[in-house]
């Protein structure tokens, strides 16, 4: 009946008991609390309109409408708590689910999403996003990395070197994310680390979204000559987003160290039998 909570010594994540969606994240060390609503939505892929015949395809992202549609407004949830891990399993639909995970000592919230095969029986190409909505006053700015190195400032509907006539309010604000995207109000910073390059944006102040999967029915006439449509039932994609909430002055140290741990993650070798055949010598 109460809110669903997972927490360790550093992070507390609270889920809405009505919807099963993440609704708040707290950095216990810094006493920072941020309401965050996270869910999956999809853009209806454009097949061309009166302004342009350009369809969304392998090269081009172009949505038919400005507003994405929710995969589901609520998630069926299951809670798993042990001494070594706490997980909330969220099932949004037959083709979209997520595990929100917290290990002891971890300073970030791990969101492992599984999306696909994307259904196209309704004849709509779909571009699926994970979106985080917060009340942060970000004044049109957000930040993405350039190949995991320099962080670049992005400003909605703006280019620093020419006067932009924005004709694509969604796709025209999408940027490549090699490893991270973040938003800040000057005090708090919400960072998402990715496990692979993705597209992402902040289309509303306080909001942050990443495209996780897409399945399209039309070619975009840019050379490939095929729709982005796998043979058979389509592919299923699994990935992870790491969510960090920190004070803006401290955030870089946190996401840089964590990103190093992701890119140089430990590698496992298994061997049958007992004993210790390998030793440091």
């Amino acid at each position, binding site marked *: 009946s109460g809110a669903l909570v997972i927490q360790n010594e550093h992070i507390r994540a609270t889920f809405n008991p009505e919807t099963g969606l993440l609704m708040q994240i707290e950095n216990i060390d810094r006493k920072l609390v941020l309401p965050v609503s996270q869910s999956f939505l999809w853009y209806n892929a454009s097949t061309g309109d009166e302004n342009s015949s350009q369809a969304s395809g392998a090269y081009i992202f172009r949505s038919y409408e400005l507003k994405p549609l929710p995969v589901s407004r609520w998630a*069926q949830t299951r809670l798993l708590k042990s001494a*070594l891990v706490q997980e909330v399993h969220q099932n949004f639909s037959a083709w979209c689910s997520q595990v929100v995970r917290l290990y002891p000592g971890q300073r970030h919230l791990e969101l492992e999403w599984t999306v696909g095969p994307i259904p196209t029986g309704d004849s709509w190409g779909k571009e699926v996003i994970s979106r985080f909505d917060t009340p942060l006053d970000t004044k049109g700015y957000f930040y993405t990395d350039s190949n995991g190195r320099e962080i670049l400032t992005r400003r909605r509907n703006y280019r620093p070197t020419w006067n932009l006539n924005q004709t694509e309010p969604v796709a025209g604000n999408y940027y490549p994310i090699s490893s991270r995207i973040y938003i800040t109000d000057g005090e708090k910073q919400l960072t998402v680390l990715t496990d692979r390059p993705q597209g992402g944006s902040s289309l509303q102040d306080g909001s942050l979204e990443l495209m996780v999967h897409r399945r399209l029915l039309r070619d975009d006439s840019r*050379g490939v000559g095929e729709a982005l449509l796998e*043979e058979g039932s389509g592919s299923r994609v699994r990935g992870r987003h790491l969510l960090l909430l920190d004070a803006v002055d401290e955030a870089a140290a946190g996401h840089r160290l964590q990103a190093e741990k992701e890119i140089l*993650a430990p590698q496992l070798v298994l061997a049958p039998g007992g004993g210790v055949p390998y030793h440091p010598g």
Partner: protein
Amino acid sequence: LGDSAPLDEAVAVLQHHDAITGTSRQHVADDYARQLAAGAGPCQVLLSNALARLSGSKEAFSTCPDLNISVCALSQNSTRFQVTIYNPLGRKVDHMVRLPVSEGSFLVKDPKGDTVPSDVLQLPQAEGDTPSPELLFSASVPALGFSTYSVARVSSRNPQARTPQPIPKKTG
């Protein structure tokens, strides 16, 4: 004889954005996969030879291509096995190891032979699918080094396996 050159060349070809973003035709994507698979074979032989020489073992080494789908014949079928964790980072890390296992309870020991806390989680499955328990334990690995943990199944049933509980939902 092993050889890393074919995989080297396949990975070099796959630097093209077509190989990553979906901007290739299907038959080209199929060919990228073919090149990777053809390159992986001789490279696995090379790695096996290197591991055999380093360990002094004549055992055949095998490579598992199912890393991303939580399937592992060795950890699921063996009653005793070892997990060697290599840390390529220049500082010590604590890493939570998750391995697919079959039902049971397990005893995990660190490189010194001390028992470390472990847990078996029963993850939710789609209806009709067989359950896939996962073994969890925290491993400590030195900078640019490795740690070897040993795992032994101590019983075939685990009455304490953690199963996720559905959250009752209010109507409306």
